[in-house]
């Protein structure tokens, strides 16, 4: 009897210790690194978490080192053009793009990278746009979050349709295939919308954003306010050849911004708090992507295996077009020695010296690749306005150009006042002003110009491709194979 008493006590004890797992929540586990999707549009505060996530999504790595956010996408646009010159193979990043091998190969990860990245941003934007109505919080906050989400969606579709769609032809119906227009968080396959339909949606989003962001004052320039929506409208209208709209929105957008003086342009170009910058990312020390940052490829001074052997150069042909008194000419060194660097900046002995290399972009240090990344600067607004007005035959076009050009070059004096000559001058100013900032492929495509790398400092074995005629099928990026595999409704571009 005594034995059995002991036994009963022991059994009860062990059962008690162990059946604690039978508590009904034993199998309910929640992550500590994530937030349930259902709650992200519950409040306006939560909506801002997603807005900030989208800001951050412009400078995080998407898989491999050459795929760090929007700056890597900008580098793709530069590498496909003729103004940006690789001086060596180095560790190979962006060289296949430079050779036009990436976007012409549907299986390339770098062909997928823009498509995948922009749709990821769009999914986050869609979550906010669809859920904003139910969010609890001040209406002003709701509008601020919603407006920024709309800008991101419009902007992402704009970037994508320019790459994967056939060129927008002003005055035609633009029924050629654009990209799938995904406006919700659904997962089912959808077919490609026409280029015209994509542009219509982009305008709709930006128009709504302008309304939603009326009166919104942003904490810093990594956030988006009304002027960014206006600036994008101007950019887009220029692509569409809608010059009155482009001129108007460019003029509206630049209100409140001033151009950098020559000193700042030379010494601290990459500073997003500059009065000239409209939109940019600032990367905090603990948010750096090391060898993936913009500055790890395009700065002159960072010591990366990409930059040391392969400092980036400007096309010698473009360089020769810059006036000697222009501050922008001093940002490139035909000797490659870079004896005149901003204060506190130096190169290491392991940095290769190559002709025509750029010091426009300067990273934090030889061991720190961070620098602010420009997505929109007010000088572009002057250039858009001038180009649009010149195309319209507006006599003020030359003045708009001069307003900007004289800040860069005190000796600037316009010789062309109208017609094609003025347009050509504006386009040269544009190439010089926006070198390295991710515009060149888009500009060549929108202007229906050929790629011509001949007669400059491109190395044949690195560049390989020297001529691509305007209208060639290669101006359209191939739809990535992964997207085709998972979506039977998707059609490929001509190979």
């Amino acid at each position, binding site marked *: 009897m005594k034995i059995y008493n002991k036994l009963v006590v022991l059994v009860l004890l062990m059962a008690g210790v162990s059946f604690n797992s039978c508590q009904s929540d*034993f199998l309910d586990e929640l992550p500590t690194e994530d937030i349930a999707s259902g709650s992200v549009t519950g409040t306006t505060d939560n909506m801002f978490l997603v807005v900030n996530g989208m800001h951050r999504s412009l400078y995080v790595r998407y898989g491999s080192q050459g795929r760090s956010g929007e700056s890597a996408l900008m580098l793709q646009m530069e590498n496909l053009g003729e103004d940006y010159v690789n001086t060596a193979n180095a560790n190979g990043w962006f060289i296949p793009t430079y050779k036009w*091998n990436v976007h012409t190969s549907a299986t390339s990860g770098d062909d997928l990278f823009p498509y995948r990245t922009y*749709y990821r941003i769009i999914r986050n934007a869609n979550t906010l746009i669809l859920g904003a109505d139910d969010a609890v919080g001040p209406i002003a906050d709701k509008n601020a979050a919603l407006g920024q989400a709309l800008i991101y969606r419009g902007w992402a579709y704009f970037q994508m349709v320019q790459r994967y769609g056939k060129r927008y032809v002003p005055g035609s119906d633009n029924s050629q295939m654009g990209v799938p227009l995904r406006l919700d968080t*659904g997962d089912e396959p959808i077919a490609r919308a026409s280029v015209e339909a994509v542009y219509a949606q982009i305008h709709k989003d930006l128009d709504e954003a302008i309304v939603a962001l009326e009166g919104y004052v942003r904490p810093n320039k990594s956030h988006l306010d009304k002027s960014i929506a206006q600036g994008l409208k101007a950019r887009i209208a220029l692509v569409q050849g809608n010059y009155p709209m482009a001129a108007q929105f460019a003029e509206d957008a630049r209100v409140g911004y001033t151009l950098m003086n020559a000193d700042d342009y030379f010494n601290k170009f990459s500073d997003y708090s500059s009065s000239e910058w409209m939109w940019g990312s*600032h990367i905090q020390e603990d948010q750096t992507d090391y060898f993936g940052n913009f500055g790890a490829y395009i700065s002159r001074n960072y010591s990366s295996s990409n930059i040391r052997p392969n400092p980036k150069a400007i096309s010698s042909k473009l360089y020769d077009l810059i006036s000697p008194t222009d501050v922008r000419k001093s940002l490139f060194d035909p000797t490659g020695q870079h004896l005149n660097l901003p204060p506190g900046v130096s190169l290491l002995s392991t940095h290769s010296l190559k002709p025509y290399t750029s010091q426009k972009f300067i990273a934090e240090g030889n061991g720190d690749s961070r620098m602010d990344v420009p997505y929109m600067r007010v000088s572009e607004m002057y250039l858009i306005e001038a180009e649009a007005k010149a195309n319209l035959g507006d006599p003020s076009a030359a003045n708009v150009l001069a307003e900007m050009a004289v800040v860069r070059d005190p000796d600037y004096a316009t010789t062309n006042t109208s017609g094609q000559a003025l347009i050509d001058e504006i386009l040269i100013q544009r190439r010089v002003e926006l070198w390295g900032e991710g515009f060149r492929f888009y500009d060549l495509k929108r202007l229906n110009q050929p790629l011509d790398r001949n007669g400059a400092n491109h190395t044949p074995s690195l560049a390989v491709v020297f001529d691509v005629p305007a209208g060639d099928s290669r101006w359209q990026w191939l739809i990535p194979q992964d997207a085709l595999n998972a979506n039977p409704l998707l059609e490929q571009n001509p190979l």
Partner: protein
Amino acid sequence: MKIKSYYIFMAFFLMCSVAIAQKMEINGSVVSDDGMPIVGASVILKGTATGAQTDFDGNFSLTAERNSTLVVSYLGYKTQEVTVTGAIIKVTLPEDASVLDEVVVTAYGTSAKSDFTGSATQIDSESIGKRSLTNVITALDGASAGVKVSTANGQPGSSPSIRVRGIGSINASSSPLIVVDGVEYVGSFSSINPNDIESLTVLKDAASTSLYGSRAANGVILITTKKGKKGSRTYSLEASTGIVTRGVSEYDRVNAEQYYPLMWEAMRNGLSMSGTTPEAQANIDATNGIFANLGTNPFNVPNDQIVLNDGTLNPAASLLYPDDLDWQAPLLRTGIRKNINFSFSGASENTDYYVSLGHLNEEGYVRKSDFERVTARVNINSQLEPWLKTGLNMAGATSTSNNANDGSSTGLANPFRVGRYIAPIYPVYLHDTSSGAYILDDSGDRIYDSGTNRIGSTSGRHVVQENLLNTDKDKNFSFNGRAYAELKFLNDFTFTFNAALDKRFINNESYDNPLVGDGATEGRAGRTGIVNTTVNYNQLLKYDKTFGRHSVGALLGHESFMTERNYSRGSKSGLIVDGNSELINFTTGLVTNSYTRKLAIEGYFSSMTYDFDKKYYLSASFRRDGSSRFSNDVRWGNFYSLGGAWRIDQEEFMNNVTWINTLKLRGSYGEVGNDNLGGYYVSQPLFSLGYNNMGEGGILASSAGNQELTWENNIQSDVALEFGFLNNRISGTLEYYHRKSNNLLFDVPLPVSAGLDDFPDNIGSMSNKGIEVDVNFGIVRTRDFNWKLNINASTLKNEITELPQEELINGSKKLVVGGDIYSYWMRNWAGVDPADGAALYVVDPALQETGETDVRTKADGTMVTTNHNKALYGFAGSAIPDLFGAINSEFSYKNFDIGFTFTYQLGGETYDSNYASLMSSGASYGSTLHADIVNRWQKPGDITNVPRLDVNQSSAFNASSDRWLVKSDYIALRQMSFGYNFKELADAIGLTRARLYVNGENLFQVNAIKGLETGENFNGTNSNRFTPSRVVTLGVNVTF
């Protein structure tokens, strides 16, 4: 110091054992029916715990009083009781008819092998003990038919991967469940001292695994640690030392004298064949320009005269520093492995104990790779009351290891990559450019060449210097505790309560130096701390009863399992003072982060066994499991199995068939599960933290989740014939299995436009089937000479039977219904055009338009293309082998013994991307070439399969295609051991056993290409990894 202290321990115990041996002795011997001595038989004085074990001659000695009774037993023989009548006793043990009656460790228990209805293979401590293993899982390679093991990499202590009976899942885990002493093990195998292992058991079919239900789909490996045995008090000391060298040799590559003319040719062809420069001018340009493209001139001739205009090396050229062009040599070494283990074990009447200590120090064959481990274990079991037994098994392991940097196959600090591909013209150290002499620093040491004259990714980097200056070091501590109480009541019932705690503390130190590499110019360091905690409780109620010829067993159980991972990391840059990598010695914070992840599983289970007259067996089991990975409504799954066996040899009609000793037919059918699709929270739709924009908190959509996601199940059937003929001289198993994985846990690709890559779902099915043969031959069985041979072989057919979309392309593979999981999908290589040496691919008719310059017609009429983007893709073999297995053998002659294991594979293909890179016809400047490049096309009319060298054609000529598939057939000598037993000497000095041995692990592999390591990955790919090491050890094993 540590070793010394062990010897003190040992001496202490030696003295004890001498002191105990005081009484009068009986000397005896134990032999079998045929007069053979039985080694290791147990002789126990009945009614006491006193006893002895027989030595190598079957002899034993012990003290006993006249007329007392000795109980003599040995596995496979009938136990005998003899009365002590004199000082010399000879005991003959008759062989037990059922020699198969080994005890097999099973799910939540043990079983006699003859009674077992499932499929299992067991490896005992004897065979593990003959090998110098750092990671005990290595012992599985070649041990069981149907179990495929990929060789662990060369980092000391690293674990191989295991697949039991094919590949169970496409996206979810295909690795078996690992159970240590009855409880799922989440830790690292390198924390387990192989000397503490009593047995490793592989459970392969549903009947043997289904009690583990949800975790059993890919088989189960049971690891059982040693415990004290009644009747003997044993001290065991093992000490060994060995050398660690590279196990796989390097690919054959060109030398400097070959390299310069080859690159000249690549440059010339780029100008004259891809470009428009006339050949004569191109020759001149290449001679003048090749130096600029390679950056370094290692010869004593001017830079523009290294290669002559005809493409040959200048005959006057000789190397300035021929002994300094090998980048592997400075990092390679012969590592030293030292191991010492001491244990003692035994049992009193009510309590058994096993205590061990071990120390291992192994250096990898690459500098800055090593592993030092100290382990301790105590296992005590006590019968406190006739009805109550309890025990505690605790192990602690602490280890420190430096890891060689092979984490990224393409990393610039990866010595295996850089050492392999760097051009053979670049010196490791700085040299005087005219004399070639080493330039020395103030203290007379050589100076690393910082490499501004190197071309390509090695420019400005220095893989040797970086690896010596950088640190990647793990300091780990593991605790594994198991406790139980077992109560017997109402005669036939047993209730057992098991509790287990596994804790693992991982501390990683990383440091990148400020001089060269990723840490330049500021230096950076990181610390990662991980605490893994696993808590497991189970309660088992067992009932066993025999009624006449009927035996019945039943089990009811409950188990709860919880594992938690606490992770934290910090990193900083800006080194302040040299020689200190602690974060306080840095200026700037980079990353601080932490998280906790938790997984819980709960299960209820039951099993029944029945046999009639030890002839007919039936078993059934059922388990209901819930997993926290799935949502509340769908998290519970039911798993079951049925098994049966018929021991034909026990039938009366077999009595006259004397040549058949064993004949058993068994079969099983059941369903087990898999919940492991990677993350612990896969079913939840989530936005991920960690996307702050400066000081503002940010989140981004990270997973779609699926509230309906539930178990992947695996329906397994198995039928086998176990046999033993001619006194069991020939014995073995012939087995057929079929596994069908249904409701595959699948990361279903989403249209990219959804903004997420995939969502988890239960879609698709796949089957694995095969035949396994395992045959043992007792070729020679005499007193002095024994020769045993084991051959095992298995076939494998994997077939996808359902998919979420028509086809899934995954890297070099394409999954389609009817295909297998590792079927290659590649461009079809069509050789080299004899006219211009261009690489040709079969053209995809859909991409072929008339009049295109990049489409050609071969002599045989095949339409081919020089544009790899227009190439036709097709299936090109599979990485799945047709047949694989092992040949194991053991010989012993008098005091000598020899054992070895060969593993082999027939069929299947490997995509050798390392060879492909070395054969790059695009030949990027600064990268070396394989020696086979001599077969390249050089002039019109050359018939070859290697395209011309041309720097402008790297994408086209070197595109991935079936050109790079090589046969995976191989045979490898996995291990070999040679031992000598000092029987006379041992007897003379009172030792039970003394053995001196030499053991070699990973001795060689014969395969398709020198340099290739066949079987690195199950999917047939390879990388620039830390290739496995070869370890040769000399050791001594003493038992007393």
